[in-house]
C-alpha cells in the first residue's frame, strides 16, 4: 500500500496548511499510524483539538470523514450493520406467489441489497479514501468495545450470513477518549497512543494567531500568558484551547488592546465554566504578587 506521508515533518507542514498546528508528538504518531496501518487512540483534556485532528487529517488527505459518535448503549446495529428487515419482509411477501424455494429466498434476503451499513462497515467498504473517527470511545460500555476489536486489528467485519468483509483500503482511524474510564487492554494494545495536552505557550500563541487572524501579536501574547497563569491554579476545569480562542475573539470584539486586570476579570466567564473556578482565578489575578515572591512590574 502506498503511504500517505513522506515524513513526520511533511505531516506537520501539511497539517499547518489546513490551520492545524501540530507538534512533534502529533505529527510523529500520525505518520507512524499511516506506515504501520494502525489506529490512533487520542486522549487528553476536553477542547484540545482531538476531534479536530481527525477532521484536519481527512482534509489534507482529501478523504471523506466517517464519524461514529459513541454513547452509552451503542450496539452492533448502530455501529456496524443491520439487516433491513422491513425490506426483507416485503421481499418475502412479493415472493409468495412465485414458485421459488426456501433456499432461494434465504440467500436472496441476506444479500448486500438488504444490508444497512453503519459507520464502521461503511468505512471498511468504501472505495474512496476515508478517515474513520470513533469519537468518545470511553462512553460505550466495556463489553461494547469488543465490537471494535475486529475492525481495529484486521480492518474487517464478519457478518454471519455474508461472510467476512475486508477493507479495500486501510483507512486512517482515530479514536478519541476523554478518559472517563480505563479502556480495555485489548483495545489499547491495538492502537497507537497519543496524548494531546494543553499546548505550551508558544504553540498556543501561534494557534491563537492562526485562528484569530485580526489579533495583534501583543494581545495574543498577553492572552496566552494569562491562560498559562490560570492553568497553573488548581481548578475544576482548566481553560481549553478552544476557550482561549473564544476569549481572544471576545477581547478583540470589545476593542481591548492591552489586557488590564479589570478586562481579564470581567471576561473570565468565557475561560472558566465553574463559579468556584472564576472566584479563585479572580482572587489570584488581582492578588498582590509581592506576597508570593518578590514581585516586579513588567518592562514593556
Amino acid at each position, binding site marked *: 500500500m502506498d503511504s500517505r506521508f513522506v*515524513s*513526520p515533518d511533511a505531516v506537520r507542514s501539511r497539517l499547518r496548511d489546513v490551520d492545524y498546528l501540530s507538534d*512533534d*508528538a502529533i505529527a*510523529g*504518531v500520525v*505518520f*507512524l499510524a499511516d*506506515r*504501520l496501518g*494502525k489506529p*490512533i*487512540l487520542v*486522549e*487528553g483534556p476536553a477542547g484540545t483539538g482531538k476531534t479536530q485532528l481527525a477532521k484536519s487529517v481527512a482534509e489534507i488527505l482529501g478523504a471523506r470523514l466517517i464519524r461514529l459518535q459513541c454513547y*452509552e448503549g451503542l450496539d452492533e446495529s448502530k455501529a456496524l450493520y443491520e439487516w433491513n428487515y422491513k425490506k426483507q419482509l416485503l421481499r418475502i411477501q412479493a415472493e409468495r406467489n412465485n414458485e421459488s424455494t426456501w433456499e432461494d429466498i434465504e440467500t436472496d434476503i441476506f444479500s448486500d441489497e438488504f444490508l444497512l451499513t453503519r459507520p464502521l462497515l461503511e468505512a471498511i467498504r468504501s472505495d474512496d479514501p476515508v478517515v474513520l473517527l470513533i469519537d468518545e470511545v470511553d462512553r460505550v*460500555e466495556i463489553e461494547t468495545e469488543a465490537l471494535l476489536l475486529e475492525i481495529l486489528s484486521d480492518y474487517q467485519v464478519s457478518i454471519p450470513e455474508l461472510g467476512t468483509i475486508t477493507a479495500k483500503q486501510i483507512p486512517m482511524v482515530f479514536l478519541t477518549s476523554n*478518559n*472517563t*474510564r*480505563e479502556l480495555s*487492554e485489548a483495545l*489499547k*494494545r491495538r*492502537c*497507537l*497512543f*497519543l*496524548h494531546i*495536552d494543553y499546548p505550551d505557550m508558544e504553540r498556543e500563541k501561534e494557534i491563537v494567531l492562526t485562528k484569530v487572524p485580526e489579533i495583534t501579536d501583543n494581545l495574543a501574547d*498577553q492572552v496566552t*500568558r*494569562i491562560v*498559562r*497563569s490560570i492553568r497553573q491554579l*488548581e481548578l*475544576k476545569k482548566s481553560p481549553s484551547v478552544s476557550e482561549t480562542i473564544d476569549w481572544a475573539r471576545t477581547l478583540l470584539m470589545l476593542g481591548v488592546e492591552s*489586557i*488590564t*486586570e479589570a478586562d*481579564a476579570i470581567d471576561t473570565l466567564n468565557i475561560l472558566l465554566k*465553574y*463559579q*468556584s473556578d472564576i472566584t*479563585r482565578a479572580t482572587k*489570584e*489575578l*488581582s*492578588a*498582590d*504578587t*509581592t506576597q*508570593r*515572591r*518578590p*514581585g*516586579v*512590574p*513588567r*518592562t514593556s
Partner: protein
Amino acid sequence: MTIAEPSQSSMLDLLTGFIVELRAAGLPVSLTENLDAMQAITHIPIEDRNAFKYALAATLVKNNAHWRAFETVFEVYFSLRGPAYALGGGDELPELDDDDTAANPEAAGAGNGGGGGEALTPEQMAEMLFKALQQGDDAMLRALARQAVTRYAGMEPGRPVGGTYYLYRTLRNLDLDNVLEQLMSQAKEQAPAPLTPLEERLEQDEFQSRVDRLKQEIEAEIRRRLVADRGVEAMAKTLRKPLPEDVDFMHASREELMGLRKAIYPLTRKLAVRLARKRRHGRKGPLDFRNTVRHSLSYGGVPADPKFRYPRPAKPEIFVIADISGSVAAFARFTLQLVHAISGQFSRVRSFVFIDGIDEVTRFFEGVDDISQAIHRVNTEADVVWVDGHSDYGHAFEVFWDRYGREISPKTTILILGDARNNYHASQSWVIKEMRKKARHVYWLNPEPKAYWDTGDSIVGEYGAHCDGTYECRNLRQLEKFVEVLE
C-alpha cells in the same frame, strides 16, 4: 556514537533492555506492543531523536500517567547516544565552546578543564546566568547548566551517591531564588511605569518557567553524567520511581503528593461513572407482570418477552471516621477527598475526624465546591484534641458511640480510616461490635503495609475481628479498588 550507528543486533539489545526496564518500572508492556515498537522504529529517520522517542511512546505507553516514568527511562537509555548530547558543544555557543568540550562526562570530577585557558570566574558565570534568564536564551541556559554541573556538583567517578545529592549541591551554589529576586528587581527598575498586579504576576510566571527549565537541564545533565559513570542499567534502577497510583500515602514526598492530588480528580470522575453504571446495570428488578402481559399481545398472547421492573437500589449512606494524626494524615485527606468527590453516588456522606477527641466535620463539606479547601478547614478547625494529641482510638470511638451511635441505621456503611496505633490505650473494641450490629457494613482501611499490622501498639486485628473487612490501602490503586466494593 549516535543511535544510527550501532548494528541491528546491538540496537535490538538496547531496546530489549529498555523494555525490560519499563516493565520493571511498572509499565504494562505486552509482547505485541514490544513488536510494534520494533516495527515502528524502522519507519522513522532514526537520527531524529524526537521522532524516535514519540515512536516508542506511542507504541509502548498507553496511559498518560506513565509518561514521566517512560521519559526517565528513555533519558537514561538513549540520551547519551542521542544527538542532544552533542548539542551543548554546538556552534550556537561561541563563548562557552572551549570549556564545554573539555568537560566530557568521564572527567566530570575534574572540574572545568579550561580548554581555552580562560575559565569563567563564579561572578562572570553568575552574570551570564542572569542574562540568559532575563532574555530567555535557551541555548545559553543549556550550556550554563552543563557548566554549573561541572563546577558545582563535585561529581566523582564511582561515588555511590544519588543524583539528588548532586542536584542539591549545584542548585545551592547557583542560589536560584536569589537570582529570581534580582531578576524581578531589575525588571522593576527598568519599568517605565508602575504596573498592575496582573502584569507582575505574568512576568513572574515567565521568569519562573525559565528557572524551571534551567533546573530540568541541570537534572538531565547530572543524569547523563551518572549514566556515563555507572552504566545504563544501574542508573535506571536508582532512578526508578513508583507510578502515581503506586505511591505510598504514608511516605510520599512533597512532589509525589502534588502528583497524587492531580491524579485524584480524574480518578473520582472515573469512579463516579463506574458506580453509577454499576447501579443501573447488572441487576434486574422483579418481574413486571402488567408490562409483560401488555407486550405479550404482539406475540398473540404468549408472554415471550418478559419485562422487569426498573431496579432502584437504595443508595448507601456513608459514615467516614478518620484518624488525622500526623502519621496517617495524608491518607485520611485523600480518602475524605475521594469519598466527598463521589458523594453524589451516596444518599449522604457524613465525616468524623479524630485524634484522641472526635468531631463531626460534615459541615465543612456542605455546599462547598472546593473540596481541598474543605479539607484545609478540617485540618485547622476541627476539634480533635482531647488530652494530649496522641491517637486514642478507644476514647474517640466511645465518644462517637455516645454522640452519634443512635444515628447509625441499617442503610449506613461505616468506613474507619487509620493505622490503629493506639498508644497502648484501651481499645474499646466493643463499640465496633455494636456498630456492626446496627450498620449495613463496617470496613476498616489501614494505610500501613500488612506486614506491620498488629506489631507494636497496632491493634488493627482486635478491631478487624468485628469489621466486615479490613483492607490494606497504601496507594491510590488500592483505594480505587476498595471504593468499587462499596455499595
